[in-house]
């Protein structure tokens, strides 16, 4: 960790770049195959720390596949393959010898449908990632579970029933529980794959507010079908189409003055 050193004397990462602009996650010519078909083609992107990055595009455009390549979940689908590189703080996550388990502890993920583990209590769900590394002292575990639930804005609603089943929660609560479970092991980045697609407007709003507060702690990459959502919460937006990255830029600029005709057609609702 070099965070303690004065910045001017010991610049971290690329020389001459301020710390906050150094990319936390970077892809270099990333291509992700399903069999012989590339779902993502030659995408090079940089995601800076402590920002919300939105990935938008029509269904099947490769944005989810791209997201799943970042924590190497893509490779669990049979017949898939990756070319190019994914760098996390400058280190290639696809290099041989990389501990996938450690990678996934550093890069957490939340899915489209809430995925609470059904046979576990609320408490055990949040603790699931923490218990992976063996026994954690009870007091420390209690503390971390409470912190994660507070950060996920769920603590007040569940603090009196931590031992009850997680599936009894509402859809929105379940999704916040999944966010709590993901952030409990203190990852550096948070990947979200359409996290509000199955929620009602109220649940959606709570998650959006939550993400804006969470970016102070995490680098957030979110796939969304909802362009208003991207416009509301993200700092940068990337438009995918047919597996290719068409445009990437500050959210405000991309929505107000898209450089590409296709981006404009998509965000104005002319297709997609």
């Amino acid at each position, binding site marked *: 960790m070099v965070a303690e050193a004065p910045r001017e004397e010991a610049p971290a990462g690329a020389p001459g770049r301020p710390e906050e602009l150094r990319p936390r996650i970077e892809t270099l010519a990333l291509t992700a195959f399903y069999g012989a078909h590339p779902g993502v083609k030659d995408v090079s992107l940089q995601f800076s720390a402590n920002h919300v990055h939105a990935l938008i595009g029509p269904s099947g455009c490769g944005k989810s596949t791209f997201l799943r390549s970042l924590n190497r979940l893509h490779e669990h689908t049979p017949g898939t393959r990756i070319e190019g590189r994914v760098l996390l703080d400058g280190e290639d996550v696809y290099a041989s010898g990389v501990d996938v388990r450690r990678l996934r502890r550093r890069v957490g*993920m939340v*899915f489209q449908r809430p995925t609470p583990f059904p046979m576990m209590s609320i408490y055990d769900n949040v603790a699931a990632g923490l218990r992976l590394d063996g026994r954690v002292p009870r007091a420390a575990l209690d503390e971390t579970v409470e912190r994660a639930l507070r950060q996920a804005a769920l603590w007040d609603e569940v603090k009196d029933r931590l031992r009850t089943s997680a599936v009894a929660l509402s859809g929105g609560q379940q999704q916040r529980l999944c966010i709590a*479970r993901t952030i409990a092991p203190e990852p550096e980045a948070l990947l979200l794959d359409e996290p509000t697609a199955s929620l009602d407007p109220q649940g959606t709003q709570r998650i959006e507010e939550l993400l804006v507060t969470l970016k102070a702690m995490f680098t957030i990459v979110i796939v969304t079908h909802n362009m208003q959502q991207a416009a509301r919460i993200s700092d940068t937006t990337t438009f995918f189409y047919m597996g290719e990255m068409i445009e990437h830029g500050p959210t405000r600029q991309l929505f107000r003055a898209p450089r590409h005709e296709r981006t404009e057609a998509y965000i104005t609702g002319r297709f997609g």
Partner: protein
Amino acid sequence: MSRRMRQWKARLMVGLLVVAVVIAVLPLILILGMLLYKGATSLNPAFFARLPVPAGETGGGVGHAIVGTLLIVGAGAAMGLPIGIGAGIYSAEFAGTRLATITRFVADVMNGTPSIVVGVFAWAWIVATQKHFSGFAGSVALAMLMIPMVMRTTEEMIKLVPNSLREAALALGYPRWRTSLLIVVRTTLPGIVTGSLLAIARVAGETAPLLFTALGSSYLVTNLNQPMAALPLVVFTYATGPYQDWHRLAWATALVLIVVVLVLSIAARLATRQRFHGS
């Protein structure tokens, strides 16, 4: 078509379905009624606790067969359930592999194999080589019947687990084997328990495989290495025997057997229901 005609037709169809349901359920009610009528009067403490008396005398019980069934089925379950569940987990989690495909096919064939064939096989494999009948040989036969049943139900249960749940565990950093064991198996545990109980209930009533293996006995035997009595064998022997008192005992034993199977089935139902109420 007039409205009356339509309503009349609907009523006719529903009526036919109700008739089908009654015909389907009737045998069960008749069997239970007959067993209760013929067997219930013989159910007394002595019936459960005592051993058989010599042929021709009245009285005696089937305590030896109750113990025998518990031991044979228990040992069979101890062998068959872990193998069946393990094979089921494998063929669900590694569904695309050649081994899983072969295992699934073999299990389907074995599920359709008549139980007497399994009994003859256990006879040739264990009884003939050891040169004596034994409760253990019966357990092996029952285990062989249980394995394919349990394997297929386990596999079907695990297949029902949404892939997103599996991915959520992987994304948390769970290694694959721990995902399978902790998340998938734990989620499907009620279903696996149900499948196991139903398999036990199924084989507890099997007679044919035990005829060639456990053989039967008139004594209280607790050594699995010796011929043993079992409830279905007692029913078979007593029901086909020439004595009036044996017939009485056969009815009562059959009643006990069907109650055991019923209790196991109800327990299986309860285990499944728990899942929907959460833990």
